[in-house]
């Protein structure tokens, strides 16, 4: 079966797989959202401990999914890996920093002799929750707005802005507004998800006031994310995009490119609308009822929205990593991918992914079927 797949199908398949991993990562940013909510919804040390111990059992999943997203892109679209990571240097270095400090903060925060004190580690978690997600969002924004790079005959990258990627958010331009909007949407969405997850995972019977704060935060963050969401959707309907216009792979600016992509692939429009609908339904269930299952609707909604956001700039003959300074250097799923042989090998490997998802789901169920209580935070193994 896999042997029969042609190169083009493999390239589409692997962009889909990378998009699924990326979309799952966006769902799992409920960890980052929860971290950035810490000081807002937890008013006592016990409340803080509860939140940290809930998120602390899941931070590694988010982290690992991010690493896999990077690994999958490296294996299947190495030209993107080399161009973006080597080019937009400062963006990726800063993202890395926020994730390095996250990794130790859970383990170190409450341990005696941790040198810097709990507050510092909580601050690092906040930075990861806000700055990390914001930058990742802005980086995703450049899939639509383009970047400042040029590739030579050997496909080696030269970045034309001295800000090395930070110009995506700092340069005074419409592109920056779009990129920042994408980042802020993801930040507020992660906070919405964080509140939903904590409502679902914590036993809050003894501290109803924190439950009230969490449900309120869920609603507030949805409201805060909406303007950015609307700005992004409206922009996508009117934006020019970077299209492949002939069989040689020539790239040209195409008006209403992303609207055309949505109309050419109505299922993507369906995914986007279903995703947004589910997200809002999940928030409504959490904020306006006493239900705790909103995270599942919100999570699925985020995955569907994430899938659309990642597939829309790549499918239908579109350059997913456009160059603003040299159109023909733009990356497409056709010119940036690995060889057919490698993509086939990786497709065989990907057959194992459902098995991985199955045991992750089982363990998730086994560990989450009992909610986390205040007494769990007294355990010496606790964070």
């Amino acid at each position, binding site marked *: 079966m896999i042997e029969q797949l042609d190169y083009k199908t493999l390239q589409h398949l692997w962009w889909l797989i990378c998009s699924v991993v990326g979309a799952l990562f966006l769902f799992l940013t409920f960890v980052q959202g929860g971290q950035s909510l810490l000081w807002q919804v937890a008013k006592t040390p016990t409340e803080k401990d509860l939140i940290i111990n809930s998120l602390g*059992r899941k931070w*590694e*999943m988010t*982290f*690992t999914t*991010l*690493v*896999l997203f*990077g*690994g*999958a892109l*490296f*294996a*299947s679209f*190495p*030209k993107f*890996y*080399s161009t973006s*990571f*080597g080019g937009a*240097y400062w963006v*990726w*270095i800063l993202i890395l*920093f926020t*994730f*390095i400090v996250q*990794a*130790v903060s*859970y*383990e*170190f925060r409450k*341990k*005696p*002799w*941790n*040198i*810097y004190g709990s507050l510092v580690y909580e601050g690092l978690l906040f930075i990861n929750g806000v700055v990390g997600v914001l930058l990742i969002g802005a980086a995703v924004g450049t899939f639509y707005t383009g970047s400042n790079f040029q590739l030579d*005959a*050997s*496909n080696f*990258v030269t970045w034309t802005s001295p800000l*090395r990627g930070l110009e995506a958010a700092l340069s005074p331009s419409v592109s920056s507004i779009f990129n920042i909007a994408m980042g802020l949407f993801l930040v507020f969405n992660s906070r919405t998800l964080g509140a939903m997850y904590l409502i679902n995972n914590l036993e809050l019977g003894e501290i109803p006031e924190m439950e009230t704060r969490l449900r309120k935060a869920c609603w507030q963050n949805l409201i805060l994310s909406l303007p950015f969401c609307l700005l992004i959707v409206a922009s996508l309907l009117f934006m020019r995009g970077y299209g492949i216009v002939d069989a040689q792979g020539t790239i040209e600016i195409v008006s209403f490119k992303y609207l055309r992509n949505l109309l050419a692939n109505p299922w993507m429009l369906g995914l986007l609308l279903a995703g947004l609908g589910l997200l809002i339904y999940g928030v409504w269930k959490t904020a306006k009822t006493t239900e705790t299952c909103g995270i599942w609707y919100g999570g699925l909604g985020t995955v569907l929205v994430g899938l659309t956001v990642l597939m829309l700039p790549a499918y239908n003959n579109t350059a997913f990593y456009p160059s603003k300074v040299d159109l023909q250097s733009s990356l497409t799923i056709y010119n940036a991918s*690995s*060889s057919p*042989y*490698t993509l086939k*090998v*990786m497709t065989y*490997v990907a057959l*194992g*992914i459902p098995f*991985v998802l199955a*045991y992750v789901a089982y*363990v998730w169920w*086994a*560990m989450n079927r009992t909610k986390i209580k205040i007494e*769990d935070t007294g355990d*010496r*193994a*606790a964070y």
Partner: protein
Amino acid sequence: MIENLDLGMVNWARAQFALTAMYHWIFVPLTLGITWIIAFYHSIYVKTGNEEWKRLTKFWMKLFGVNFAIGVATGIIMEFEFGTNWSNYSWMVGDIFGAPLAIEGIFAFFLEATFFAVMFFGWNRVSKGFHLFSTWMVAVGSNLSAVWILVANAWMQHPVGQAFNPDTARFEMQNFAEVAFSPYAINKFTHATSSSMLMAAFFIISISSWYLLRGRHIVMAKRSIVVAATLGLLASVFTIFNGDESAYEIAQVQPMKLAAFEGLYEGQTNAGLVAIGLINREKKVYDQQEPFIGFNVHIPGLLSLMANRSFGSFVPGMKDLVYGNAEHNILGAVQKMERGKKAVASLDAYKQAKKADDKAAADVHLASFNEYKEFLGYGYLNKPEEAVPPVALSFNAFHVMVILGSLFPLIFLGYLYFSYKGNLAEKKWLLGLGTITYLLGIMASQAGWIVAEVGRQPWSIQDLLPTTIARTNLTAGTVQTTFFMFLALFTLLLIAEISIMVKQINIGPEEN
């Protein structure tokens, strides 16, 4: 591109990668080894129901947790640094190198991440059996991740299963099985994981010895030592054997590395292995200075035996490998560079002809390229002497590793012997030595990686891609800035980690 080469940037990027890798490798071997030992302790607890084993398991688990977090933190940088500092490398070999990294993510990291939470927090949440299974899965996951990253590293040392595609201007995978099951990768994996097991054993012995010296947690310390010393002895003997196998493999595919870490300038039959010697740091491959300063001892024939499995065999020296040796049919870097330059020129001409749509000329240049393509990497060297890695650093690192590695089985044997006699607690000299064994293990292990990576220079991919070409187009100042950012961050985290670890050891298992 090459004309604009900023060597300062390349060196800073190398320094940054070395910094990250060396920090990472302080924590990783402990994770790789101690997860098996904890799984072993946990199994004894589940089998016997003895609470003492549970306390012991939880104690070592807690120390592992502190170590694990910082290992993860330093690990993510390694993956992304390939892109940020070595973007040309990522493009040139991403078609091959990316696959093991992705497989590592899919199969190993998820196993580790998923069951890690169960291992730590599953005591009253899941069944005893599933909890134990989770502990074993963390060990399997950690070591599976080592498999794939070492497959990737082994491919950099011995690039099999690939071919250069002149149309895409990159190396592409031709045979995944050759990449995944290369003998070099197997040796690398067995050597790295068995040495990690002995380091974990030393970690446990260091702390347990300190407890015995202080007269604290006597029972736990003795039990921990017996298991750790048994596994450590097996691992240390195995490490010596597969280390020898690694040396043989290096002699076959990276003879320059072997010559450098033995300080062998002139090729010899019946070549001796240096037992003691002070390498002459000033000596160059083209001068007549003595390779060693003053007194040195060679064990006759042992290097020939190690390199070729035959006492009387010829082992090429650095001079043979740079300037060639017709008598022994060895091509030197000089000859390889000539051919490499032809490959580079043919490749450029092929690209031009293709661009001009001149198919006949393109075919001619392609045929010429194919004739010389195996020497492509040498075409980018400026002078043949560049093919020699830093000799003194390679030599010293190799000998530190070998001397310490030979000592380790004796230490484990000593612990087992006195444990068997029942008077270990009275052997203060051994316990004193025992407290620093973990540091000795770290030294040996770090030295091993210096041999592997410094010895591969000037190549990122042996013979195919020089480090100078593999870099990202960044200024030296940019990489310098991030180097010091990482250095400061890692050091701050390491200080916190050591402090927490010391406190946890001081608290001991009772309170845990």
